[in-house]
């Protein structure tokens, strides 16, 4: 305590050096004056009186020195002095300094850049008021629609009615807001202009959405509860981003009318800059519109269906409210609500009623779907970049050791002259830390560029839309991280060399070039090279495994053809195309595109393989009892036009495909895949059998007319191909009693598949022209080769493989520099020995081999150590990436070979130099 107080005083005193010097001078003067007066009184002559007084006071300078030591912070002053000294020395050796700073910058930059992503995706809260007060109902991020009155494990997605039930009954929430779980585009056009509708991400939110987040409008006003009522004039809030980028911050936009999905909305305000909604996502919403206006836009009217769950809930709890008790309260409310719908519940739902529950979780980060998606990859990248940093540190430590060796004479001389070892060590450490901090500063720059590049690769910009709201520029936590890493790195690579450099005997300076104690340093350098080789092997193997796995993933047989296929994505719902005209529209599109030269086939489907989505259904096979609560009756399905299987290149195994004869009035048919046949028909022959979707009230709906080969539609590559069925576009799933279409949205076909003839190319302009001749207003979302669409599924994997490969390459280069350094140094040290060997009859080749052998022993030991490390890394990666074989012998062999060849290259130059030593000169030099 006393020490602390003293330290604080010292700190404050240290900052006012000048005034204290003045005080001391005044005190000394007063002291001597008083003494002089006494001396005068004692009868001394004036001159003598003063002289005696000064004498008695003692050595003023020594006292002042002592006083200063007491007063200031000698430690801090020493650090500053060491710092100046270190900088002076580093300036004197610019080549070394630049090399070290650059190497460090690469290592620290790599780590910091990955940390920037880790921080943004895994740690950061939403930019809203007091995120710690926010709680989300639900644990998992579940997308996007869920029907019925039961959910697996927990309820995490809610219907509008259930939301209102919670909102009105849970008093401990200051605000409980609901918003759309899915990410969707809205067709947007400013009223009164002739421009074509453009797709922007939009989101239905409850009226208290912004109040709940504590967000204020940048301009105009945000939504209120009054906007979110049936019959309220439809209003929308626009993102700051869109307002600024597309409309140049035009203030007249507030109050302007926009059509969103063909319905008029008045824009009443602009969100504040930086606000990106309720979750981190690739394209944040540009429009926020009240939930109550949802029936206006789509035909669906999800808002009125109590069993249609499509909303996420986040609430701000009242100060002092206990989340645990709110959770308990809401569970009771959930049961109450479910009971009130007992009559509408299916037998399945009733059976699952007892286990229905929900969880309240901190919601300050919003809906964390991106976190769930990227968590593992980011962890892998963090480990990989830490490896790179270790290799970098080893390399720099190696350079520092050489530097220490060069300075031995100087250091032993200093010690002979009385310098303390502690002081010399702290000087050496200060030098390391200065280098590390300089490297860190440069590393932040590299991290900025690197993060930008990674973001660009993972989240490619879509023209006109907002990009992912992750900033590459370093935030304070990132800067702190970079500083911490630099500091630790500086200690890491600095301490051993500093200790070794100062472990010299002062007598050495006098003795001359002694080599008695250099052995430890040489051993340390060899160990560092071994360490680097081991880590490099692990990284090389890891990158090899990832690259091989990615290659296998991408080039596996997906059950459809990729070559010569182009996918045009359209969205007729953005312009609210009338349902009755869709079949004609699709036929006209097919005809128009087929007439483009070079095009051999055209077909349209709801979702093309490995695209964005697919619908699921529960299947009831005709002639069997309806499936019970525990029966697995799920299959996914797709709606397609005639000629689809030929266009997508999936072979027909039996029966026929969908044809133009399957019309609205003909028998409803389905084509199933092999997995469907196996799962539902097992040993029976499926063709001619009937089935239906649960909820149709019959099992006699679709006649199976054909079987196609299994093909991969979902990106769940680790799972076997699932059962699928395909329905004709022209036929509607109508309920027998009411004639209501139960799947109207499935007729909004998204993907046009175009097959071009061998050798023929087709331009985007031609496609657009052909599309415009059908309907100029139909928004085209994208045109891309099917190959690119498939590759898009592996964007993360590719990024990881590429990053790990570049990190592996970097580590290889660093390790070979280290090996070269050690080998060259050893050759220099053993010049005499080599000379003697040559003089005694060794051939130059033998001498060269001796040197190369020495290098290979180091690399060999590194391999032995690195091998288990590589296996562990492979095991871990194998658990993360489907299709990765951790024991791939080709990859391991290639990695070992690469390392071996690099070692050979790194050691051959010093070896050649050794073989060219002239014996006579070598002996004379001694």
């Amino acid at each position: 305590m006393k020490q602390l107080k003293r330290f604080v005083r010292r700190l404050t005193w240290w900052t006012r050096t000048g005034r204290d010097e003045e005080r001391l001078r005044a005190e000394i003067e007063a002291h001597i004056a008083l003494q002089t007066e006494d001396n005068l009184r004692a009868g001394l002559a004036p001159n003598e009186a003063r002289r005696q007084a000064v004498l008695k006071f003692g050595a003023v300078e020594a006292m002042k020195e002592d006083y200063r030591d007491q007063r200031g912070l000698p430690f801090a002053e020493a650090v500053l002095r060491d710092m100046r000294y270190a900088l002076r020395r580093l300036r004197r050796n610019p080549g070394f300094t630049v090399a070290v700073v650059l190497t460090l910058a690469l290592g620290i930059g790599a780590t910091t850049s990955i940390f920037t992503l880790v921080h943004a995706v895994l740690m950061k809260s939403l930019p809203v008021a007091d995120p710690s007060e926010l709680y989300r109902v639900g644990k998992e991020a579940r997308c996007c629609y869920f029907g019925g009155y039961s959910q697996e494990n927990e309820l995490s997605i809610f219907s509008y009615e259930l939301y209102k039930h919670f909102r009105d009954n849970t008093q401990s929430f200051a605000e409980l807001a609901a918003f759309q779980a899915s990410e969707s585009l809205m067709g947007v056009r400013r009223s009164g202009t002739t421009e074509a509708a453009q797709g922007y991400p939009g989101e239905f939110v409850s009226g208290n959405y912004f109040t709940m987040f504590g967000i204020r409008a940048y301009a105009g006003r945000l939504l209120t509860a009054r906007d979110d009522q049936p019959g309220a004039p439809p209003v929308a809030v626009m993102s700051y981003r869109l307002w600024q980028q597309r409309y140049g911050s035009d203030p007249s936009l507030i109050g302007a009318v926009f059509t969103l999905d063909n319905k008029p909305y008045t824009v009443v305000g602009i969100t504040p800059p930086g606000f990106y909604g309720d979750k981190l996502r690739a394209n944040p919403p540009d429009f926020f519109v009240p939930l109550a206006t949802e029936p206006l836009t789509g035909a669906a009217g999800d808002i009125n269906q109590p069993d249609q769950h499509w909303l996420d809930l986040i609430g701000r709890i009242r100060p002092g409210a206990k989340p645990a008790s709110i959770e308990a309260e809401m569970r009771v409310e959930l049961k109450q609500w479910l009971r009130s719908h007992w009559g509408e519940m299916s037998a399945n739902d009733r059976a699952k009623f007892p286990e229905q529950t929900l969880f309240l979780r901190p919601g300050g980060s919003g809906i964390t779907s991106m976190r769930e998606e990227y968590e593992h990859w980011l962890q892998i990248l963090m480990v990989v970049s830490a490896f790179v940093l270790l290799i970098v540190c080893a390399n720099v430590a190696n350079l520092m050791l050489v530097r220490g060796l060069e300075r031995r004479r100087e250091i032993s001389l200093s010690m002979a002259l009385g310098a303390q070892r502690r002081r010399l060590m702290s000087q050496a450490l200060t030098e390391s830390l200065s280098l590390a901090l300089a490297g860190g500063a440069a590393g932040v720059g590299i991290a900025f560029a690197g993060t930008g590049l990674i973001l660009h690769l993972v989240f490619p910009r879509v023209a006109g839309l907002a990009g992912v709201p992750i900033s590459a520029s370093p935030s304070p936590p990132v800067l702190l991280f970079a500083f911490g890493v630099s500091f630790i790195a500086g200690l890491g690579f600095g301490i051993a060399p500093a200790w070794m450099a100062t472990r010299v005997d002062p007598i050495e300076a006098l003795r001359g070039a002694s080599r008695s104690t250099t052995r430890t340093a040489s051993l340390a350098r060899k160990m560092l090279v071994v360490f680097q080789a081991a880590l490099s092997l692990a990284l090389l193997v890891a990158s090899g495994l990832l690259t091989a796995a990615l290659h296998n993933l991408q080039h596996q047989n997906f059950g459809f053809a990729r070559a010569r296929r182009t996918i045009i994505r359209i969205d007729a719902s953005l312009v609210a195309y009338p349902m009755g005209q869709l079949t004609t529209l699709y036929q006209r599109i097919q005809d128009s595109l087929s007439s483009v030269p070079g095009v051999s086939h055209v077909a349209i489907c709801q979702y093309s393989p490995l695209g964005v989505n697919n619908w699921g259904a529960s299947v009831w096979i005709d002639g069997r009892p309806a499936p019970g609560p525990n029966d697995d009756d799920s299959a996914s399905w797709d709606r397609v036009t005639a000629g689809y299987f030929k266009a997508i290149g999936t072979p027909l195994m039996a029966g026929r495909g969908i044809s133009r004869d399957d019309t609205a009035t003909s028998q409803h048919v389905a084509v199933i895949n092999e997995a469907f046949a196996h799962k539902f028909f097992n040993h029976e022959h499926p063709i001619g059998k009937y089935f239906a979707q649960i909820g149709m009230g019959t099992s006699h709906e679709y006649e199976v007319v054909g079987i196609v080969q299994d093909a991969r539609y979902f990106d769940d590559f680790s799972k076997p191909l699932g059962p699928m069925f395909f329905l004709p576009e022209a036929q509607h799933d109508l309920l027998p009693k009411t004639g209501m279409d139960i799947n109207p949205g499935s007729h909004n076909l998204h993907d046009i598949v175009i097959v071009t003839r061998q050798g023929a190319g087709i331009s985007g302009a031609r496609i657009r022209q052909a599309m415009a001749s059908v309907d100029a207003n139909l928004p085209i979302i994208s045109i891309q080769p099917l190959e690119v669409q498939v590759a898009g599924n592996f964007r993360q994997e590719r990024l990881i493989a590429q990053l790990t490969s570049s990190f592996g390459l970097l580590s290889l280069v660093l390790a070979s520099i280290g090996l070269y350094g050690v080998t060259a140094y050893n050759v220099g040290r053993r010049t005499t020995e080599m000379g003697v060997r040559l003089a005694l009859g060794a051939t130059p080749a033998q001498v060269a081999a001796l040197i190369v052998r020495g290098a290979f022993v180091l690399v060999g030991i590194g391999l032995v150590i690195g091998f288990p490390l590589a296996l562990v890394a492979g095991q871990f990666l194998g658990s993360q990436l489907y299709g990765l074989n951790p024991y791939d012998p080709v990859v391991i062999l290639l990695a070992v070979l690469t390392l071996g060849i690099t070692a050979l290259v790194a050691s051959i130059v010093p070896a050649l130099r050794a073989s060219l030593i002239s014996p006579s000169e070598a002996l004379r030099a001694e």
Partner: protein
Amino acid sequence: MGEKNRKKDVLQGTLALMVLKTLDVLGPMHGYGIARRIEQISGDLLAVNQGTLYPVLLKLEQEGSVASEWGASENNRRARFYRLTRQGRKQLQAEKQDWDETAAIIARFFAVRAGDVK
């Protein structure tokens, strides 16, 4: 830390105690007054190096045992006056006790002749 430093530490430690006691007895006093008092009582301890007193005073001030301010000396000279703080008084008491105990033990050691203890 060398031999010289250790001696200085001992001297400073003793000096600090003397300074505290002086301020306790005489009340607020300037550096010269303290030096003269110590000189009178301890003989030649400060006869030569009166300046060494100032680092000690500073250390005591940093520790909070004394406080200082400018004032006028008896013959109207501007001098810095030091006074004991409450904490200083406590420290003096504690150190006096320590000192008495140590002195008593040492004294006993010197009083005991070989053969007295079996």
